[in-house]
């Protein structure tokens, strides 16, 4: 289990303030900016994203590492396949 507070983040994308499917599309567009094995952090305030992005990541072969709640939003971590 990775320590989500001590990850080396290759790319952070901010999708806060957007509703579904905003965060998912931000994740989809941004993952091309990182290399295989690198980690992307997605910031979202849309509750559905907590289930949506893990499901998408699993389907696309990326690894969902988990999410961390912050004040009013949360951070999702994906490792690119």
């Amino acid at each position, binding site marked *: 289990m990775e320590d989500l507070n001590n990850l080396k983040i290759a790319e952070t994308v901010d999708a806060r*303030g957007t*509703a*579904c*499917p905003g965060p*998912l*599309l931000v*994740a*989809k*567009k941004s993952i091309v900016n990182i290399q295989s094995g690198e980690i992307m952090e997605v910031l979202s305030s849309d509750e559905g994203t907590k289930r949506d992005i893990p499901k998408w990541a699993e389907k*696309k072969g990326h690894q969902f590492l988990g999410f961390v709640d912050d004040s009013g939003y949360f951070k999702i971590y994906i490792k690119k396949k």
Partner: protein
Amino acid sequence: MEKKMCMGLFSGSIDRLTAAGVILSGAAAHDMEVDVFVLLMGARSFMKVNADNIDSLSESPQLKEEFLDSLKKLNVKPWQEFFKEAKELTKVRIHICGLAGKIWGGEKLEDFIGLADDICGIAEYITAAQEADLHLFI
């Protein structure tokens, strides 16, 4: 091989066009190949003269103001933007039903918004539906 989705888009109201757009976004996120067949009421909304003025609801029309206000507050994109973005992200082809176009006075591709790729007949829809992994009718 990526999965294929076929969508029969009969509806031309903003609630269903928005739902169709959100579904297309999901398909795009999964790199699905999508064929959208724009049928009767949908074809009317895809005409250049109408596309920017669609504000009717097919479900619970009395909730129209609440719905439109919520879309605005939530920064939800206009329905056409969902379709446009999906086309940028994955292979989405939008076909206008020839009969539907004619019913509303749209004879040529130029009568429809730029999202439309071609005007086609029912055989193409049926073929795409048969070949698709997922077929939706909205």
